[in-house]
């Protein structure tokens, strides 16, 4: 998803307060995930039975959970798992979806069949794929990633097909064809780069949604399994102590909220910056 973020886009994002704030938040979130081993005050799996369910304090900034594990440490490492699950689903589903979208736009004969199939996939909610995959392969991160990838394919295919069709009608595609460029090269050199801004905007928004869905599946016990630190699974474990120590589930839940909000705001701001026609 290496889209060339032109300086002008960054400047436009900077001019918009929401855009600048959300970009800052996303950068901080990604940095925190990358630097987790260095930022973390303790081992996220180290239990201390003498310090269970501690509220936030100077020693434990975000408190401890039901087994005396440091919540800040688990949040930082959990962020990695949550983001990686989201990125993996987006990448796998996005690449396949984009390929299908390009093919549908380029080979008009395959269009009808491909897009009908995409419509069928689209008619099922992601959570249902999550349930089915967890039933087949057993609960776990892999099942969640496969399910969310499948749910992403038809969305990406639609976006890519739509913007590729616009490009296909332009003169220079005709010109490239006239000089005898091969199909693959034409798609890669001319079609794909001109669809990048649409792909980029969609990917940002979709990453937020995928993270939200993945954490919900983990919350249900169908995704990341304890003791693995993952935000949704942490919230689910904290649920058992809701009335004694609400912070154990509130902090990870709030974390997911902030992450998804940041990606959604950034996606909206990017759309406004890259495609002013869509701004209303």
């Amino acid at each position, binding site marked *: 998803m290496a889209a060339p973020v032109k300086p002008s886009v960054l400047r436009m994002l900077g001019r918009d307060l929401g855009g600048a704030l959300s970009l800052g938040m996303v950068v901080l979130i990604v940095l925190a995930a990358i630097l987790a081993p260095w930022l973390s005050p303790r081992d996220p799996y180290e239990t201390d039975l003498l310090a269970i369910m501690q509220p936030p304090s100077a020693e434990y900034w975000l408190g401890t959970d039901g087994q005396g594990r440091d919540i800040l440490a688990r949040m930082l490492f959990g962020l990695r798992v949550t983001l990686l699950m989201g990125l993996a689903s987006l990448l796998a589903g996005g690449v396949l979806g984009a390929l299908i979208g390009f093919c549908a736009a380029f080979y008009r004969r395959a269009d009808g069949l491909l897009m*009908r199939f995409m419509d*069928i996939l689209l*008619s*099922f*909610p*992601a*959570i*249902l794929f999550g*349930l*089915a995959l*967890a*039933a*087949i392969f*057993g*609960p776990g991160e892999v099942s969640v990633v496969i399910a969310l990838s499948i749910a992403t394919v038809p969305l990406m295919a639609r976006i890519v097909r739509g913007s590729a069709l616009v490009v296909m009608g332009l003169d220079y595609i005709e010109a490239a064809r006239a000089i005898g460029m091969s199909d693959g090269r034409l798609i890669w050199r001319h079609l794909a780069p001109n669809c990048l801004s649409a792909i980029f905007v969609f990917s940002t928004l979709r990453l*937020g*949604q995928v993270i*939200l*869905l993945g*954490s*919900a599946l983990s*919350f*249900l*016990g*169908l995704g990341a399994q304890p003791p693995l630190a993952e935000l*949704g699974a942490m*919230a*689910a474990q904290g*649920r058992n102590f*809701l*009335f004694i120590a*609400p912070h154990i*589930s*509130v902090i990870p*839940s*709030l974390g*997911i*909220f902030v992450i*998804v*909000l940041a990606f*959604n*705001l950034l996606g*909206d701001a990017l759309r406004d910056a890259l495609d002013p026609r869509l701004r*209303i």
Partner: protein
Amino acid sequence: MIRHGVQRLLLALPVLFGVLLIGFLLMQVVPTDPATVRAGPQATAEVVAAIRTELGLDEPVWKQFFLYVWRLAQGDLGVSIINNVPVSQELGNTIGPTLELMFAALVWSIPLGIALGTVAAYLRGSFVDRVVMAISVAGVSVPVFFLGLLLIWLVGFQWQLLPFTGRGGPLWTMDGLLAIILPAITLGGVFVGPVARMTRSAVVDALQAEHVRTARAKGLGEGAVVRRHALRNALIPVVTLIGLQIGFLLGGAVVTETIFSWPGVGRLAVGAILSADFPMAQGTIIVLSAGFIIINLVVDLLYGALDPRVRG
């Protein structure tokens, strides 16, 4: 109109076939032998063999598939591994509560979302508009379980205002009504945002249409212009989008049912998967999928009925 309907119906058939096939494959990959399971732990080898023959497990796979579809058509979804209750019976008990919960969530969130979206579109660019859009983006970003846990902790536990575990009874009783409030707020809470957003953009478009200018020019009051001329036209796409978003609502329903111990299909499905109760998991997934095919079909047909342009 009839042609549109028949076309849609024919398109739904291969999808249904796909769902059935996936349900069938689900039972093929699981490690347990359905005959041993159905026979129970004390059964002798002869009894298991007899059940194998009865279930057709010795037949070739394609024949088994037809047998399975045949049994499904008769409402036989197998028996739970965990408590030996027929899957169809459990499903019959849980579909009602799930529909009840979804209805209770939609009945307040759709009108509120449409109202907020319309006001935001009318006052486009104002402070009110910005607040509505902020609520809407927060609504699509908040995890359902966060909203649910906060409500349980605050309203249920701290203030002791409302019950938060299970279904209190039928909706027309006081207990039933009180018990559904928190789950309905949780589930509907994540739906207001998307509805408001879709309504806003549709009404913004509609307000720029020429017939709206004409309506204003002939001296109609602003209320009538917005309600009768802009909103009514905007509602067609909004209704369709809401229909297609029901899937989004189902995802929320599964989580909501789990945190509020609501005895619905979603909670049943999750419980079955977690306890490796394969026949139950298969049954819930088939029923939920079939539900989706039906919802999509109905939305499609409604769209055709509402907007004559679609039929061509």
